[in-house]
């Protein structure tokens, strides 16, 4: 890239704009491949996706994938970003040199209205007709020359999922780049359109469509047929529940072989180091701190990959808006918006992307209510804790011949999370905050066969983020815990386990009276303190606490240890605690950023801690009265 002429030292920047579901992200992936960066826009938490590519003529182009919108008249933080970047008034964001409006060629009506609005901005503009192959397949004939002439904008067909599908677009970008060097942007005449102006641009878009587009000869029978089943009031809901249930069973059972493999790998590594190194503080740090700690987190990678595979598949297939449709009344009963379903479903993986996904909700109160309950959905970081306790305390047998009892308990914990989220939302939205109800207004896009490349890239991005977290935050926490539980060491001639004398032991003993009423011992308390940083750390911390206290490093041994040293009532109480407890500093951090206030994370922490304590208290005492103490 050193050969670039001084004039082009800053690569030309293009911005992709389009309606939601137009295949914009697929086109972005096709253009940039793996050369993309995901971050946030300065000052707001809207996801910023930027990448670069090189055109056939060797130009390096920066490309920005803007959030989808129907209009520049922004109504949500996401759409505000799109508007401000397009208008070149977003602070810290360079003005785009070229706007590429991405359109679903099978559904042009609304996007042409957006094109007409974008034209008023006065920036160089290009219309990419994406999914052109599907449009042709359905018998839609588009007179590109006519469309381009009527709109006064170059029009290029693209097929994002095919290798050569962006060749035309690249050629046009090369041509446009030459013009950019010489031409200047026109005057910006855009202003927020009134209802009558929206009607007028609709009429203009319709006029152009009538001239340039022949309607489909083959209706989209697939979507029609699938919707008959999937949106059926009864069958649709049953299918939705089945999909969710299947997802959880898959996460719990399919991941097992891979998890066993990872576990064995880490155990072998620890054993090798134990054999190769002399006994001492460094060996203890490496095996008990680093390997045991990181190993017990990385082991959950298969589950995270499976979960995200499901979520991304459902998203790409076009099922998510249908799920929102089916759930709207139920969510609405709890005072939540139907759109809250998608952020809440994402929260099953992790509350952080879930909370960030609440940006699709326009109304502030609806959004806040969704943010506040998102951490109650069972995130994947709870899985390690649930798995450990369930495996140690719930017998491994089948119920009714098909379902594993352990799977059913897991399902029950998920259900408890969902029900409590709905209940909390109900209290917030129906009792505390009564007021305007946001309309539920959502396009139901045509179903599409998910693209393997997009799926792999999506899963890979998430897995990478998870591993980075395991490699940085969690690793440093693990070392801290190891330190806290190793120093000061036991005095000579001590009879109790060494950890009893350490800082962690002291803190645990000191907090013990507070948690005794809910049946927690001091080891649990010690594990819960680092568990504040990330839920799953508690498992590793328990491992460290018990391993350092005389047990072994591997998870199976930990299960045995727990099975012997905890009562069933204590185990159940800890499960109940984990359904509610605000055991995740990152979530609180994201809430602070998203709400731009300290008040909301504090309220969240307070209410969740209260619920956790009450639930554990009730669980422990009910279990104890049943004789399980």
């Amino acid at each position, binding site marked *: 890239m050193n050969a670039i002429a001084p004039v082009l030292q800053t690569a030309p920047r293009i911005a992709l704009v389009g309606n939601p579901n137009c295949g914009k992200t697929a086109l972005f992936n096709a253009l940039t491949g793996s050369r993309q960066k995901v971050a946030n826009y300065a000052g707001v938490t809207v996801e910023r996706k930027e990448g670069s590519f090189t055109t056939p003529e060797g130009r390096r182009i920066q490309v920005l994938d803007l959030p989808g919108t129907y209009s520049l008249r922004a*109504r949500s933080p996401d759409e505000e970003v799109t508007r401000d970047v397009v208008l070149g008034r977003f602070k810290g964001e360079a003005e785009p040199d070229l706007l590429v409006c991405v359109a679903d060629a099978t559904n*042009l009506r609304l996007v042409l209205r957006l094109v007409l609005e974008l034209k008023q901005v006065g920036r160089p503009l290009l219309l990419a007709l994406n999914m052109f192959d599907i449009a042709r397949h359905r018998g839609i004939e588009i007179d590109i020359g006519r469309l381009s002439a009527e709109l006064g904008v170059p029009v290029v067909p693209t097929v994002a999922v095919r290798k050569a599908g962006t060749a035309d677009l690249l050629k046009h970008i090369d041509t446009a780049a030459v013009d950019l060097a010489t031409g200047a942007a026109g005057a910006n005449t855009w202003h927020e359109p009134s209802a009558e102006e929206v009607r007028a641009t609709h*009429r203009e878009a319709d006029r152009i469509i009538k001239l340039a587009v022949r*309607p489909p000869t083959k209706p989209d029978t697939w979507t029609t047929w699938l*919707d008959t089943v999937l949106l059926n009031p009864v069958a649709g809901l049953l299918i939705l529940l089945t999909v969710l249930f299947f997802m959880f069973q898959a996460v719990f059972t399919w991941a097992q072989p891979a998890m066993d493999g990872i576990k064995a790998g880490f155990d072998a590594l620890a054993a090798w180091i134990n054999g190769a190194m002399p006994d001492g503080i460094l060996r203890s740090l490496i095996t008990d701190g680093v390997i045991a700690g990181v190993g017990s987190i990385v082991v959950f990678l298969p589950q995270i990959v499976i979960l995200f595979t499901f979520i991304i598949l459902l998203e790409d297939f076009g099922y998510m808006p249908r799920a929102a449709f089916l759930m*709207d009344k139920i969510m609405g009963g709890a005072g939540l918006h139907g759109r809250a379903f998608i952020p809440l479903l994402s929260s099953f993986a992790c509350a952080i992307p879930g909370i960030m996904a609440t940006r699709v909700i326009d109304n502030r109160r609806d959004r806040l209510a969704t943010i506040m309950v998102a951490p109650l959905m069972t995130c994947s970081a709870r899985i390690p804790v649930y798995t450990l306790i369930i495996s140690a305390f719930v017998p491994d047998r089948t119920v009714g011949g098909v379902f594993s009892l352990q799977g059913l308990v897991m399902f029950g914990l998920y259900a408890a999370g969902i029900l409590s989220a709905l209940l909390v939302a109900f209290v917030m939205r129906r009792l505390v905050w009564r007021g*305007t109800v946001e309309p539920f*207004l959502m396009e*139901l896009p045509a179903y599409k066969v998910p693209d393997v490349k997009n799926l792999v890239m999506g899963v890979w991005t998430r897995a990478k983020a998870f591993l980075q977290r395991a490699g940085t935050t969690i690793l440093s926490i693990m070392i801290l815990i190891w330190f806290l539980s190793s120093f000061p060491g036991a005095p000579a001639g001590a009879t109790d386990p060494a950890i009893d004398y350490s800082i962690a032991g002291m803190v645990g003993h000191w907090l013990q009276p507070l948690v005794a009423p809910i049946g927690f011992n001091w080891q649990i308390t010690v594990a819960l303190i680092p568990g504040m940083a990330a839920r799953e750390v508690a498992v590793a911390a328990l491992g460290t606490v018990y391993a350092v206290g005389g047990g072994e490093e591997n998870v199976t041994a930990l299960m045995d240890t727990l099975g012997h040293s905890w009562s069933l009532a204590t185990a159940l109480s800890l499960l109940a605690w984990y359904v509610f407890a605000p055991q995740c500093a990152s979530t609180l951090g994201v809430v602070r950023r998203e709400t731009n206030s300290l008040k909301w994370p504090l309220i969240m922490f307070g209410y969740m801690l209260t619920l956790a304590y009450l639930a554990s208290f009730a669980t422990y005492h009910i279990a104890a009265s049943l004789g399980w103490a």
Partner: protein
Amino acid sequence: MHLSSRPAVSDAPAPDQDALPADARPLSRAAKGEVGRVIRVGLDGALHDSLDPDELERRLLEIGFVEGARVEILHEGLFGRDPIAVKVDDMRVALRRREAEAILITAWQQPAASGATPRVIAEDRRS
């Protein structure tokens, strides 16, 4: 996307009540399977607990509920037959009956004022 003649629309605000056809009624009262033509979008007053009427009107317009559009109720939710999935010209939109109150429709069969919509296409659409 080709249903392009919008004869009922004028640049003036929505027509007054007297000018409406006899069978005009809000989309919110339509049942599954019903087909209609949008004749007015927007309300004079606000819905209880809802958005500002002008904002609601623009959102409905932006997602395709425009005067002259063909609408067909495709699906209904389980509880209270709400929300509804509506085919608006060529696309599908989900909304609650509550907001559908702001969309006034008339029977589709009624001839369009200018007759500009090709009959063949109109029949094709119903399949």
